[in-house]
């Protein structure tokens, strides 16, 4: 399995350029697709299929991460900035297991997610639970999570060093979907999104544990009175969110490279997707994630510049929040 990572690196870094510093991964195999089709008359149709296929597969980790973040945000009320480091941790843990034990990517992806989930639970016990017991305010809670994010990010840098690291994997198989080449890793990422989404739906809607989660989300005191164990439920939420973030990180990592800023670069997009899509349910987050992925890809293909696509998206989402926030302005406390 040690035979050819170099070629991937070269290929990727040559195409990525500015993308290296951005919030998203820009992958090698898509670019020839456009070039190949450049002269055709069906350019619009191609743009649409390209955007759909690439957008969905490339941004599957974003949807995955957003689901985890939304779960945590909706059910514990915490905007956890350090969630970005859960993602980064997933990427590093996967890379570490992969390069240390020479394990296949498919074998390490789930353990990486589980490890990230456990670390997520650990941060809950070490920091967020004590903070809640001390009645720390919502605003202070965000700043605490920001502090934790910084601490973990540079802690990782301390351990793994600043240079960008790579997974040691053979080049993934390229599978053609609607004529667009997609790596098998990305299809796996998309598959994980589906599995996790179904799992969460089933979990929250059907099982008694899901009932408890919903009760907890509505009213913790009530939940406690009715014999539900908030601690167990909360731990489970942190774990699931951590697993989702860790998996997303592993997919991000194998798709490009691993660096301390990996998760932080995705954080703003995740936050936007969750806030715009997720006030009500996980379904909204998934839809917002898909729209984001497809729109980003379409605009990137059009502008030839990832950053502009992001700029448009940030502006659009903040305006959506602004418009919606106004309509919901119902203070009612006085």
């Amino acid at each position, binding site marked *: 399995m040690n035979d050819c990572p170099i070629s991937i690196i070269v290929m990727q870094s040559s195409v990525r350029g500015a993308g290296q510093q951005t919030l998203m991964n820009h992958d090698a195999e898509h670019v020839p697709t456009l070039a190949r089709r450049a002269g055709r008359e069906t350019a619009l149709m191609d743009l649409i299929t390209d955007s759909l296929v690439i957008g969905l597969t490339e941004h599957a980790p974003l949807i995955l991460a957003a689901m985890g973040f939304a779960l945590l945000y909706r059910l514990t009320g915490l905007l956890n900035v350090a969630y970005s480091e859960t993602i980064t941790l997933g990427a590093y843990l996967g890379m570490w297991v992969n390069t240390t034990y020479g394990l296949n990517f498919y074998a390490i992806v789930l353990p990486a997610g589980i490890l990230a989930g456990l670390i997520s639970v650990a941060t809950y016990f070490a920091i967020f639970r004590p903070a809640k017991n001390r009645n720390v305010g919502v605003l202070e809670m965000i700043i605490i999570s920001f502090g934790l994010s910084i601490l973990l990010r540079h802690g990782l840098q301390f351990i793994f060093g600043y240079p960008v690291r790579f997974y040691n994997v053979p080049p993934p198989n390229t599978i053609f979907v609607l004529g667009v080449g997609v790596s098998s890793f990305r299809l796996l990422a998309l598959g994980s999104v589906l599995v996790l989404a179904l799992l969460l739906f089933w979990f929250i809607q059907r099982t008694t544990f899901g009932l408890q989660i919903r009760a907890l989300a509505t009213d913790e005191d009530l939940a406690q009175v009715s014999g539900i164990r908030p601690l167990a439920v909360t731990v489970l939420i942190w774990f699931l969110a951590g697993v989702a973030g860790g998996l997303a990180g592993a997919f991000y990592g194998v798709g490009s490279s691993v660096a301390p800023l990996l998760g932080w670069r995705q954080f703003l997009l995740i936050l936007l997707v969750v806030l715009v899509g997720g006030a009500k349910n996980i379904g909204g987050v998934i839809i917002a994630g898909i729209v984001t992925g497809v729109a980003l890809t379409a605009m990137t293909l059009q502008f030839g510049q990832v950053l502009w696509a992001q700029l448009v998206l940030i502006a659009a989402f903040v305006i959506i929040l602004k418009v919606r926030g106004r309509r919901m*302005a*119902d*203070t*009612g*406390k*006085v």
Partner: protein
Amino acid sequence: MAGDHKDTAFAREPTRDSDGSRPRVRIQDAVKSFAGRVVVDVDDLTLGTHPIEGLIGPNGAGKTTLLRMIMHSISLDRGTVTLSSDGDGSEVVLSDLPAHRMARHGVVKTNQVITDFEKLTILDSLLLSVAKATDEWPYRIYREQGLYEDTVEGILWYLDRFEFEDPLGFAKSAGEKKLLDIIRCLLLKPRVLLLDEPTAGLPDDIRDQLMGLIDEKAAEENMAVVIVEHDLHVIWTMSDYVHFMAEGRVLLQGEPRSIREHDTVIEKYLGSGHV
């Protein structure tokens, strides 16, 4: 406004006359529901035809919600709230304005539950209340002394009558906070004063003094006062007119005595043990 009465049999001459310049709040076709449950559904209600009006009803009747709708601190599902005054003939649609504009039109509400600024002292609170927007621009960094000198008389007028343990410090007890809440509102020189359970948590002597003051102001300064209160003694002794609400609707209106003896009120609210 006799046409608005649900039950005109009890509409008698009020104990005190309205001289017409008193501002009135008219609520038309106003509906508010929370999570599908209709909390307030008022066809047409005019408040302020009498100096002091009581608004009573069982828990969950929608009294506090109605007051909040007037203040526009919660949005209306539909309907309008209008402030009009025959004195200058002005008419303002309150339900089209943001909440912070109410005070400028003289519509002010005190709070049922204790509501205070934790970081501000009593004097701070009172100065905040009397400060105008022009005193509060970011560049007016030398304005404090002038504001204090311009307004201290009005503030001391209240501090002399109502004693706080330490007016330069923070409000200590629940009673002080409640009193502070009401004085803050009075300092705004309201034209329409909505009192949401003003006596809860106040010591008896302060309550009597405060209610006496409000009674005075209603008569002398043409202020319209609406009191929501569970202590019915306050309602029966103070109000010139009473509105009875239940299940979000105004069911009865009339003089205190007639409301007090009405079968519906006894059945739905006072209970048969009531004398």
